[in-house]
């Protein structure tokens, strides 16, 4: 189970909850589906890119750096947005620090 009170900063190495389903509908929209409760969240293209970069090894700082190589205009504000996004996903149990098998 993820730690929903997890303290997250730019050095955190987060991974996605492997029980969730990311459905990419088109270039600008994806659905994040939790089969355990049926809840669905919409993600935009940038959020999908972030999601796909969360491998449990990259720090959030490195994730933002990767975004910078993919999109123009990535700056400190983007980093804060990514941090806020991660905090909201962590509260939902969608991302966390997962123990290695």
């Amino acid at each position: 189970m993820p730690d929903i009170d997890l303290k997250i900063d730019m050095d955190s190495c987060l991974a996605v909850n492997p029980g969730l389903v990311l459905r990419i509908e088109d270039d600008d929209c994806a659905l994040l589906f939790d089969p355990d409760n049926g809840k669905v969240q919409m993600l935009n293209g940038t959020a999908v890119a972030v999601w796909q970069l969360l491998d449990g090894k990259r720090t959030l700082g490195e994730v933002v750096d990767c975004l910078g190589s993919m999109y123009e205009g990535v700056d400190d504000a983007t980093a804060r947005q990514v941090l806020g996004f991660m905090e909201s996903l962590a509260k939902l149990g969608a991302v966390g620090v997962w123990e290695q098998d």
Partner: protein
Amino acid sequence: MPLQVMRTPRALDLEITSRCNADCSYCYYLNNPDVVYADLPTDSWLRFFRELASCQVMHVTLQGGEPLLRDDFLALVDGIVANRMRYSVLTNGSLLTSRIAGQLQQTGRCDMVQVSLDGSTAEVHESLRGGGTFAPALSAIRLLQDFKLPVTVRVTIHPGNIDDLAEIARLLLRDLQLPSFSTNAASSLGISTKYGSGVLLNTTERYKAVRTMASLDRQYPGRIQANAGPLADWRMFSEMEEARRTGTPVAGRGRLVGCGCIFDSFAVRSDGAYIPCVMLPHMVLGRIGETPLTEVWQNAESLCRLRERRGIALEEFDECRLCAWRSSCTGNCPGTAFTATGDVGRPCPSTCLKRFQEELAAEGLSLWP
């Protein structure tokens, strides 16, 4: 401009068996020359569920035949859960046990179990569903409630239960305290074509069913669902009449837009054939295990043509050209259109408001004063 279709379907209807332990007189499925009565083995379904997971499918509905007739039913449910999907089950309830209900409850992934019930008494329910089917259906509903599973009921309206509809609603919504139930009506598919007038509503019966369901809809607001049959017709007809009366057509209508299902879901027959929906079992798009789901979903020619029917304007059809409701009409279901006309690219005459009003007028009746 080509239609935008999602990369993979969000949901599938899976006819996991062609077998049934009931013999309902109006079954669209039994005695249907377009259905191949063969069941895939467990392994084929489990492999398919893995493919569904790779396509990010979110939901499947298990139906038949009677899905609980499969000995491996719970193994299939486990396969669905293991592949990160949710599911619903459509059943007559006769084979439901505490063990099965408990297993379904434990998965935490069951969105709905739908039990078929057509009467408030054994006499009415069994008039077309056969003897000994009422008590098991009622027991199944109660068992599902005991296990706190989301249970709903489908009532098929036919000539023999129109006078019982108010009692059915009372039984389901007051006595059993279900949050809601749904209704439809028998259509000319499968074995119902054999029994004809005994199971299909004639004009007067349909009128009575529409009036009754409209009244029950007011009595139980928001608690009776309908995608087809008298209540669905009433809702659609009321909307169309209001649009005609006020001169404000319903946006997006006036074309064959009656079916949205094929834009986010499709179906698989018990023999593994992909079909657009269970109402179009003859339209084979490919086979599971042979053609990748994504390929069928995105490129199957007849599925693409079916989607493109939305571009066909109703004014192209002689029977629609002078219709006062045309600009707010959807042309209705392609499945029933095919049954009635042999062509999915036409409006469905059996759910046509203009035609219904003409038939009613011949009987001295009208939907509106």
